[in-house]
């Protein structure tokens, strides 16, 4: 059998998967009774609802005649942008805002090919300087500015 609405078919499966995972985790918590609900009561109800709704979505997609392809993810920007953020999060406490804002811009610019190198470096420096000025000096945000070994 050929599924024409692949997008919603997949969407339903994602929902069911999500519901199954939360159901498995949630069922470890004490259920309690309706009168005195334990920590597990609400999550388990929600998980079951989610599995039901996901199944409906998948089921409807199977019957649907709409032709919707499986969405293609843009892996490069997805990976690069996430990596840039995670690197910022990992090193901000030690390396400080100036260096990490620079690194964040530098890494994120790899999310597409063909950006000029000089532009990337100048932009990184400019964003880093602007962030330091605006957030550290003007708004007095609680964030380290320079690397801890700086002195």
């Amino acid at each position: 059998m050929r599924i024409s609405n692949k997008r919603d078919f997949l969407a339903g499966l994602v929902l069911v998967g999500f519901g199954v995972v939360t159901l498995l985790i949630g069922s470890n918590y004490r259920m309690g009774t309706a009168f005195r609900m334990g920590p597990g009561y609400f999550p388990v109800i929600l998980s079951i609802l989610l599995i039901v709704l996901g199944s409906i979505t998948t089921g409807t997609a199977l019957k649907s005649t709409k032709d919707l392809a499986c969405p293609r993810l843009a892996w490069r920007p997805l990976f690069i942008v996430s990596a840039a953020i995670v690197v910022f999060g990992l090193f901000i406490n030690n390396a400080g805002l100036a260096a990490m804002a620079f690194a964040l811009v530098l890494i994120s610019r790899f999310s597409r090919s063909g950006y000029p190198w000089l532009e990337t470096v100048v932009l990184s420096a400019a964003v880093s300087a602007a962030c330091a000025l605006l957030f550290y000096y003007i708004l007095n945000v609680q964030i380290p500015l320079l690397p801890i070994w700086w002195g």
Partner: protein
Amino acid sequence: MELFQNLALGFSVALTLQNIAYCFAGTLIGTLVGVLPGIGAFTTIALLLPATYGLEPTTALIMLAGIFYGAQYGCSTSSILINIPGEASGVITVLDGYQMARQGKAGEALLVSALGSFFAGTLATMVIAAFAPPLANLALKFGPPEYFSLMLLGLVGAIVLARGSVIKAMSMAIIGLLFGLVGTDVSTGTQRFAFGVVLLYDGIDFTVIAMGVLGIAEIIANLEEAEEKRQSYAVSGKGLGIWHLSREDFRRAWPAVVRGSVIGSALGILPGGGALISSFASYTVEKKISKEPERFGHGAIEGLAGPESANNAGAQTSFIPMLTLGLPSNVVMALMIGALMIHNIQPGPQVMTNNPDLFWGLIASMWVGNLMLVVLNLPLIGIWVKLLTVKYRLLFPAILAICCIGVYTVSNQSFLVSVMAFFGALGYLFVKLDFEVAPLLLGFILGPMFEENLRRSMTISHGSPAVFFTRPLSLSLLTAALLLLVITMVPAINKSREKIF
């Protein structure tokens, strides 16, 4: 008249030199971020929240509110001039506003949107002043079952008004509720969905989720699109010099402005409602009642004037559930509640009686702020236009930096920056699978309160769910929720709903 006494008190607070200055700063910053695509009112308020710790609570709220409605205003500029909405609620403005700009009527479009917004702001201010006190009185009678039913109504509202499939929107709300449960369960102290990570014991700060699924996901999705496809009609300055409306345009625009303001004021009050929904609704109404619906999408001035007024009115009246019930109807209102809590003010019906100067001062400041927006921004259009010509490839790294710094400052936890990356990826996946994230965010915000009130109600009733149906207030709220759902399920309406969105 008590109303006038209250408003007089409000204006005496709002018109102090300090409050005028902060109101001005707020609306100006708001317009700026509203113009810039990618940085919204939410990100900005989250970033500036810590900076307001030292201010008087009234002054802080006035400034933050200014950012919120200023952004609604600013986003119309970018929608009209470059076909890119600066905020989500601008997606309707682009339909006819951008077409007007292409026909060389950018000046008229900006003028109509400014005057319409001001009229809407004035009406919304009066609506808040008139309806907030009785609503707060009603809210004093609310027990856990009523709060539960009200939140359910809010969630249903967000589901019904979301674009696309109702089932999918419902699923998003449930996923939001589930994310809201992460952390320590208040009643029993159990750690739920925390995976042993100590930093998750307090739950996930909603700035992390909101910036992830809204901000970061949007950046990833934008980077996927073809490079620089937006085209600025403003750069050529074509049609920008004309600052007057023809008699014909005025005749067409003013009834739309009035209708839009009324629709926006009404929809903004609903929990789950707000600016975006209001502009959608207004556009539909205008197109339905128009004698020449074929003009819509080709620069119909009514299609711009109505939604522009509606989103401004909706943004303002969405303060009502926050101020009177303590219920946030969108992410920005959730931040406002945070701002109140910092100053030891518990949001809810008692704010009006315990802090009348804050309550009425804030309301009066909204009108003052709207006036400032008109007077200020029309001359500043030139500057906004310059900003809009900045290329996205230069802008997105800066937006990324602002989001990272924002999450770090709100939580002071570097770990949560990485959590934001996770929600960014998740949000991107949801976008690709055609899920709307608004119900997820509302579910997340309401999650803990929702469960808490469910538990309390069931304890009151000794485990019988009948409690929700035997109390008249709760029953009427549930009936309203059910009606909303049923109406959406009716095939005819469902079809037109798909056509509009």
